[in-house]
């Protein structure tokens, strides 16, 4: 804008022109008809508004009920895994050095789980007595809804088997040792076993073998002093 040309007369003229433009503005054609057409609708608008005032509380009530149901379902679905995890803590695989502890942990966890299942089953049985019809359904769905159980324990290592063998009580051999006759025959049986393995062969000896045997007998007087038991036919090694 050229400021030099903007004198007082132009200012007044421009203001008057703006005001004249505001005064002489023409209303759009057909404004009256459009206004009257729109004014003929308040009656139906009132009716629709009254109907909406009646239906809106019902809609709100239905929406609230649906929200409550959805939240309840979500709450139950999100709470169940946490509860099962608390009952069944996860047992991870451990190295073989800690296998005994793992076995103990596994046994204790399985016992706790069994006890928990027994308690839950008892409680469920007590609670489900008034409703016997739903019991099969609950039994059928319990496995599907239950959390997955941990993997079965790994097979015992050699060290674990040795420990179990040491700690094992009531073996048949130990029980047999309580028998006097069996206990009295045990030294004889041990001596027979010894002779079975260390008795010289009964085959005909040569001269060298006889000399060697005599030398050996001189070097082992204790063995020679003991009476050699008669070899049993079954104990003779086959040649």
């Amino acid at each position, binding site marked *: 804008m050229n400021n030099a040309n*903007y004198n007082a007369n132009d200012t007044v003229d421009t203001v008057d022109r703006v005001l004249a433009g505001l005064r002489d503005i023409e209303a759009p054609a057909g404004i009256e008809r459009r*206004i009257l057409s729109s004014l003929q609708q*308040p009656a139906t608008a009132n009716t629709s508004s009254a109907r909406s005032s009646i239906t809106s509380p019902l809609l709100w009530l239905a929406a609230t009920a649906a929200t409550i149901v959805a939240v309840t379902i979500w709450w139950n679905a999100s709470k169940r895994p946490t509860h099962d995890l608390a009952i069944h803590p996860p047992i991870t695989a451990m190295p073989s050095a800690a296998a005994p502890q793992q076995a103990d942990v596994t046994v204790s966890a399985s016992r706790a789980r069994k006890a928990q299942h027994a308690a839950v089953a008892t409680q469920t049985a007590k609670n489900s007595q008034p409703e016997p019809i739903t019991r099969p359904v609950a039994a059928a769905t319990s496995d599907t809804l239950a959390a997955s159980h941990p993997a079965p324990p790994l097979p015992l290592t050699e060290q674990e088997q040795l420990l179990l063998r040491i700690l094992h009580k009531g073996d048949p051999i130990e029980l047999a040792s309580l028998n006097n006759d069996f206990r009295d025959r045990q030294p004889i049986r041990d001596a027979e076993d010894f002779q079975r393995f260390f008795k010289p062969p009964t085959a005909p000896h040569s001269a060298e073998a006889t000399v060697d045997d005599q030398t050996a007998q001189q070097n082992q007087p204790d063995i020679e002093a003991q009476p050699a038991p008669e070899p049993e036919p079954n104990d003779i090694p086959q040649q």
Partner: protein
Amino acid sequence: MTSIEGLSLPLSFTEGAKAEIDLAALVETHARLLFRVAHSVLRSSAEAEDVVQDAFVRVLEHRNRLNDIRDMRVWLTRIAWNLAIDRRRRIRPDQFDERFADDLAANSATPHEALHEAQRIRRVLREMERLPRAEHHILLLSAIEDLSTAEIATVLGKTESAVRALLFRARTRLRERLEKGGA
């Protein structure tokens, strides 16, 4: 009962009412005045037409008390004015100034003069918006020659002398600001 192209809306009062006012006649008589009043504030034809429609909706809402209204013209003007002021808070009238200025400057001799005139008109409209609120309102309503000073005073809730004083101050302040800004 007057009708516009077949449309007629008799405003029947309550059962004891003595008179019957035709809404179509009211629309035909006052719609264009109300449109100018609303347009002076909003400077948009669509917005002004919506204001006129809302004004007659208010008439329907108060149809039971129309007998108590002494001057229907001023009453309708006041309704439209208040509705336009209320709508002005939600829209920005300056967004419509460019088109309004171009329309006013379209009658200039040359395109260069039209462009120059449109710039000056936009500046006048901008300075009018910066006037004090009472002076701005008086200036807008005074532009509508259909309204007398007494009617403007009634619409704005002021005395006639106050309207004249405010109108004088508004013109003076606007001219001073335009000359100061243009110097």
